[in-house]
């Protein structure tokens, strides 16, 4: 896997370099906000997630393990976890969010991001729909089956097939 500028920045963050955080933020705040907005569909909540994610990165940069994926993917994992936590808390309070259509500000800049988009485009519509309900809505397999009116076994197969396809296309070397 090619070393990205973010990995150098993370090393500086581990050393307590505050300027590295600003550089890291400038590189990836759009990515984190875009993902949080896609999950939460609420601008204010998404920006809260952005703040939480970068503060967590500042405090726990040493937890990044390059053998387990790119720094960007690690960042997305943190952002998704925090956004879904908020989504579930909102659901528990039965709050509705005023839907905000995510407005793109820029195309993804990394080769990895383009490869992911290309890989997702190879999935069937049914596979992508089930995968997105799990990824962006945080639904469980049973909830997805109920939402789509499909048998549970069908949903499990769709998601498993999609994930295996993504793993095979993206691979550790992407």
């Amino acid at each position, binding site marked *: 896997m090619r070393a990205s500028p973010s990995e150098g920045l993370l090393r500086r963050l*581990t050393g*307590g370099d505050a300027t590295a955080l600003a550089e890291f933020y400038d590189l990836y705040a759009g990515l984190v906000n875009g993902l949080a907005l896609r999950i939460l569909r609420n601008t204010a909540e998404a920006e809260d997630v952005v703040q939480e994610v970068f503060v967590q990165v500042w405090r726990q940069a040493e937890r990044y393990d390059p053998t387990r994926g790119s720094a960007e993917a690690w960042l*997305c994992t943190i952002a998704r976890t925090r956004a879904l936590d908020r989504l579930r808390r909102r659901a528990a309070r039965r709050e509705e969010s005023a839907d905000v259509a995510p407005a793109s500000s820029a*195309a993804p800049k990394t080769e990895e991001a383009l490869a*992911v988009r290309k890989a997702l485009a190879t999935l069937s519509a049914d596979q992508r729909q089930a995968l997105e309900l799990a990824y962006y809505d945080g639904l469980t397999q049973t909830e997805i089956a109920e939402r789509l009116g*499909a048998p549970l076994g069908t949903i499990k197969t769709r998601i498993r097939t999609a994930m295996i396809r993504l793993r095979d296309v993206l691979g550790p070397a992407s």
Partner: protein
Amino acid sequence: MSDEALLELCPLAALGALDGADLSAFAAESARNTTLRGELEAFERVVGQIGLASEPVAPAPVVRERVVSVARGASSGGTVPSSSDSGARPSSLRTAATWLSLAAALGIALGGLAWRGQRDEARREAARAKAEAFTLTALNRDLQGRLDATQRRLESAEGFRALVAHPSTRIAGLAGLPAAPGARGRVVWNSERREAVLFAAGLPPAPAGKAYEAWVIAGGAPVAAGLFGVADEGGAALHTLPRLDDVARAKTFAVTLEPQAGVKAPTGPMVLAGPAI
């Protein structure tokens, strides 16, 4: 659950989409099965990558100010949020350190073995803690999922009661066709509310790779109204149809046997059908 079946759950576990018995089995086994954890980590890597497909959206400038101020506050307070001590040292110390380097190397060599042991133990402890955290998180999600499922069943029951109580609600009888002569069914439906619930009995379990699909026919082409399965015993099924415009002017309800992913137009044998009266 077999090892193969558990490995098949890894993609769903990585997404956090497991629930029920699958989740319980996976959580119990993942704490002690290194093969399973390796496979799970491979799919967790994929999950991390999926987020990269999102369209970047710039947050408000004030968010950057807040983030940077946290870092500046930590640095100015002398608190370095990392265990690393690799920052630059004064040059005088570097000079002094030159003649000490030999002695230091000896100390490092002696301490190295002990340090490695501590490091390995710390890594094992971290792995154990991670597995336990995964289990607890999974069980918490499972409980929350069961609570949500109960809530949904209650809401569904209340919705059905309201449907039945509505003065415009009608009941259509569905007869078993030659592909399933012992089957029978009823559709409780309401054209004003565009709601319909299908009850079926006597249907044989759908073969592997197949599922039953409901259809609403309102004069034009049949409109797909959701897939469902049946219990192994008795062939009973309860299926709430999605709110379709065609329900408002339905003329016929029908059920066919189709590929389990569903189809947009019926292709398989019709097992149940009846007029929407």
